[in-house]
């Protein structure tokens, strides 16, 4: 949804907290009068200190439009101003200020028939998860592939849910790559994304796929260049950059 008129701050109440990995948690909020959203959109979160100092950050929405609560999945950055509060201090029943949904470019609708290619680096998977959850709830499911780069096995956000989504055998294939530690018996990729990996995972350019890439800026730029390298039109490739640290300064 992209409603018109002023975008107002509203008080959202935390109703559930889910630990995804040692550093990452999903926060489910009850947002009064939420107008609905599209997969790929984000919200701004604002914290105000007792002395009036305010910090604002953007977080992608992880939940699909079909769900009642608005879920944000946040990676705790140790030197961050906002994320250590969200992942560590915020408790169920607490409220914070939030506004949204925001964004009309990096969005996907289940009615889009093009094959879908999602490429995620770390917590860049969050808006792409909203797309996959939306796809899972849709009656007509376009073919989809996710290439997800994580540091180590324990860092794979949504790992069990992704396994379940892939096990449904409804046209979704998930490829993992681990860039640091690999557990015994690991069958996925074990390196940073490169041309050979993209060649293996990407839809043939003749199928004119819809492509979404999200993650830290160096990851997104490498992936986008590789996709153009296999003949994709740059206009098919929509990107969202988190900056150097992970989430715009956290």
């Amino acid at each position, binding site marked *: 949804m992209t409603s*018109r008129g002023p975008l107002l701050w509203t008080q959202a109440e935390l109703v559930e907290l889910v630990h995804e990995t040692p550093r990452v948690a999903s926060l489910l909020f009850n947002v009064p009068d939420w107008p609905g959203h599209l997969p790929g959109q984000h919200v701004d979160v604002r914290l105000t200190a007792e002395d009036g100092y305010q910090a604002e950050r953007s977080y992608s929405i992880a939940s699909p439009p079909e769900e009642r609560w608005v879920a944000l999945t946040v990676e705790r950055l140790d030197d961050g101003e906002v994320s250590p509060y969200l992942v560590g201090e915020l408790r169920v029943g607490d409220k914070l200020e939030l506004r949204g949904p925001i964004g009309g470019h990096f969005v996907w609708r289940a009615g889009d028939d093009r094959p879908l290619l999602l490429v995620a680096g770390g917590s860049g998977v969050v808006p792409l998860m909203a797309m996959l959850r939306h796809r899972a709830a849709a009656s007509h499911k376009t073919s989809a592939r996710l290439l997800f780069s994580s540091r180590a096995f324990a860092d794979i956000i949504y790992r069990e849910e992704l396994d379940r989504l892939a096990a449904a055998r409804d046209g979704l294939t998930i490829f993992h790559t681990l860039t640091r530690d690999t557990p015994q018996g690991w069958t996925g990729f074990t390196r940073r994304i490169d041309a050979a990996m993209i060649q293996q995972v990407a839809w043939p350019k003749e199928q004119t796929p819809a492509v979404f890439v999200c993650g830290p800026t160096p990851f997104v730029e490498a992936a986008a260049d590789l996709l153009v390298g296999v003949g994709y039109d740059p206009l098919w490739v929509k990107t969202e950059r988190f900056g150097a640290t992970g989430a715009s300064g956290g």
Partner: protein
Amino acid sequence: MRMADMTLDGNAIGGLLREIFTMEVTNAEATCAGCGAVNAVGRVEVYVHAPGTVVRCPACRQVLMRIVRGGGRYWLDLTGTRTLELVET
């Protein structure tokens, strides 16, 4: 850390732009006054580590917009943007 690693894109300032415009701006198409390239605002380069926000054309790197917020005012320089085409939803 390389300066280039801090580059964001127009998606990051969707909220800031909605403080100024009543319509969603990241899916609007901006025409660069320098090179004439047309890009969705979600696709342009954004730098937020200066005192204000600097938006650059991804084709020629010319400044498209500068936005400074503070002291109860917004200061908006659109010299580098020839046109902005917003989509009614």
